[in-house]
């Protein structure tokens, strides 16, 4: 640990701090309000999921993926299931694919609602946070209806989904989709286009495309820099290639392309698109099996695969090496927030303390995913 010299004050922000989104510790050197360096210290939430994966069977690991990005458990389940399915070579029934897309997109909305809310509360406006929670609650109800859990779903399984959609799910989802756009307009009035909010975020912490590539930024943060890269379009999985949706990219509406406001706004735009996708998928639901025939004991053949999927926070990849037994030989989890956070020391130079909060909030990191 560097010894603070006289000119600077060294402040340890976290691991217990109101706005580090978990147990992140930032060692900050400041000159008054201006930061001269930021050093993230992570690992406070390290549970050794990769090690656990080596001692549980393939299906047993699914609940653990819930605990990667707990705000987007469905997406994590999905990416893991896709990885194992690729090694096993299983084809998924169409109905299961459509259900998976519905779940993934609903979860994307609920995750972005938290991103929206937590950024707003970081910026000092607490009301939008509760509004975001309110709409998320409706989605949680839908999830509870489908799989019985509200946070750690363990719903998307190897081979399909654990249960078929319940009675009344479609109507309830449609009801939600009907009123959701009005809520987004409300968010925009309340927060997105609020001039104080824009002032706080526009032109702050601009990530240029080169930096985004260098630091492995993915997801909405990458698209905010103006790069149209979305795995749902670039490497379509499930039924995404049949769906009509846009991939919003940052245009620097309020400042520079790739600034914090663009990153924030990507999430609002993506919620709109996800709602659109869910609407289309509800129409595509045809009777069929909700899961493929999967043997009771899974023994993928020897091999390795790196499979990735678009998570709300970026690219979630599982690098799985199978030695032909019932347990993974090695499972490396490439999480989006880990790479997204690694740019913070670069962005955090020369900004103010309040901006650092905006940077962390706009990158929308989530700690269990970083520490695994």
């Amino acid at each position, binding site marked *: 640990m560097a010894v603070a010299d006289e000119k600077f004050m060294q*402040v340890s922000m976290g691991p217990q701090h109101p706005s580090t989104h978990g147990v992140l510790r930032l060692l900050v050197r400041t000159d008054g309000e201006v930061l001269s360096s930021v050093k993230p210290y992570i690992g406070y939430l390290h549970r050794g999921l990769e090690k656990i994966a080596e001692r549980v069977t393939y299906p047993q690991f699914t609940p653990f993926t819930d605990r990667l990005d707990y705000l987007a458990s469905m997406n994590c389940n999905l990416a893991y299931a896709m990885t194992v399915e690729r090694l096993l070579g299983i084809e998924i029934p169409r109905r299961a694919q459509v259900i998976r897309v519905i779940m993934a997109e609903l979860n994307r909305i609920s995750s972005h609602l938290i991103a929206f809310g937590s950024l707003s509360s970081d910026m000092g406006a*607490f009301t939008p946070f509760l509004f975001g929670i309110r709409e998320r609650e409706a989605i949680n109800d839908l999830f509870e209806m489908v799989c019985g859990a509200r946070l750690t779903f363990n719903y998307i399984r190897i081979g399909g989904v654990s249960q078929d959609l319940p009675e009344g799910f479609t109507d309830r989802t449609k009801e939600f989709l009907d009123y959701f756009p009005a809520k987004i307009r409300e968010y925009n009035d309340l927060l997105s286009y609020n001039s104080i909010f824009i002032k706080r975020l526009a032109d702050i912490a601009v990530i240029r495309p080169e930096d985004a590539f260098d630091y492995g930024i993915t997801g909405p943060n990458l698209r905010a820099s103006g790069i149209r890269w979305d795995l749902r379009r670039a490497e379509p999985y499930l039924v995404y290639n049949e769906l009509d949706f846009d991939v919003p990219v940052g245009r620097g509406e309020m400042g520079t392309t790739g600034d914090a406001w663009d990153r924030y706004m990507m999430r609002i735009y993506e919620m709109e698109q996800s709602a659109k996708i869910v609407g289309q998928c509800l129409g595509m639901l045809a009777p069929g099996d909700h899961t493929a025939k999967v043997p009771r004991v899974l023994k993928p053949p020897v091999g390795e695969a790196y499979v990735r999927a678009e998570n709300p926070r970026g690219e979630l990849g599982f690098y799985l090496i199978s030695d032909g037994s019932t347990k993974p030989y090695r499972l490396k989890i490439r999480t989006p927030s880990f790479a997204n956070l690694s740019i913070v020391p670069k962005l955090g130079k020369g900004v103010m303390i*309040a901006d650092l909060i905006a940077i962390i909030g706009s990158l929308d990191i989530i700690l269990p995913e970083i520490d695994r």
Partner: protein
Amino acid sequence: MIGLIGHVTSSLAHAGPLVRLLVTVVIMLVSAMVVLAVALLYEGAATYAERKVAGDIQARIGPNRVGPYGLLQFVADGVKLLIKEDIIPFYADRWLFIGAPYIVFTASFAAFVPLSYSEHVSVADLNVGVLYVVAISSVVSMAILMGAWGSNNKWSLFGGMRAVAQIISYEIPIVLSLLAAVILPASLDMKDIIVYQSGGLGIFRWLVFNNPFTFLSFFVYFIAAIAEVNRTPFDIPEAESEIVAGYHTEYTGMRFAFFFMAEYGDMFVVSAIATTLFLGGWQVPIIGGLSMPVWLREVLEVAVFFAKVFLLIYVMMWIRWTLPRLRVDQLMDLCWKYLTPIAFFNLVGASVWVLLLHGRGVYDLVAGLLIH
């Protein structure tokens, strides 16, 4: 009050000087107690109101467990704060740390003294009332810095520095816009100012409607006053998402409660000043011109005064639960680039208006035209 003391002492003219002194002290103590009781009751009610307003705005209910409608919540809060452990950090500067809350509270409480609650109800009718309030409320900034420095905590220090910079900067637009108002009645005595605003159905001769400059002044004053009492969007000294809790990070129990109550006390004082100077103080609108018994008039006047003050406090709360927080430099921008120039402009404009039109307001001019 001074009047009352004078009245009593003159009727005690035959008694010795010691008795007169004693009586004076007793009267002063009793009146201080009354004001203190009113202030504490108000502060309790205000914390309850704040939470209820926040609840309403955030689509929830707010406190409703203690007493009917949760009305006794503030009593419970007070008891909780009283019985909490009082922690003084080991490395704190004890005297500064212990002294700060008392000074904050005293300064905030002392500002209640010259307010004119109705024609005959006031603690002390100072002929420099406005000046006195402005002066005494800037003692708060010193006390905050004492507490912040004394805590020996980096977050506290940040908060203290921010608070001092902010409060001192915002004094300038406040004083300038108050000046624009007081040049019309040409008095700093609260009662004189209110009396000046009588007539015009008790509404139209308010100073805020007197001329366009005082109208603007009111808004400049109100914005600056929100900053003066450190409330969102200007709550950077205690911005909980950035610097944990700012200057009162290390305070617990009753010491914290003093800071907390001082904030609400300040809210009342700035709203009362705005009411007195711009909104006609205790002038009863419409029915004020009718003849009625003195006691009824007094009651009405007090009620009107408090209604106006609480309306302004409600607006402050409404703003707090809507807007995000400004950054430190943007806060200074707002003060020095917007509020201060506008306040200067108002002052000049109002002075010219007074010179040219001999103090006649818009209402007088219009009324004059109609009569002719």
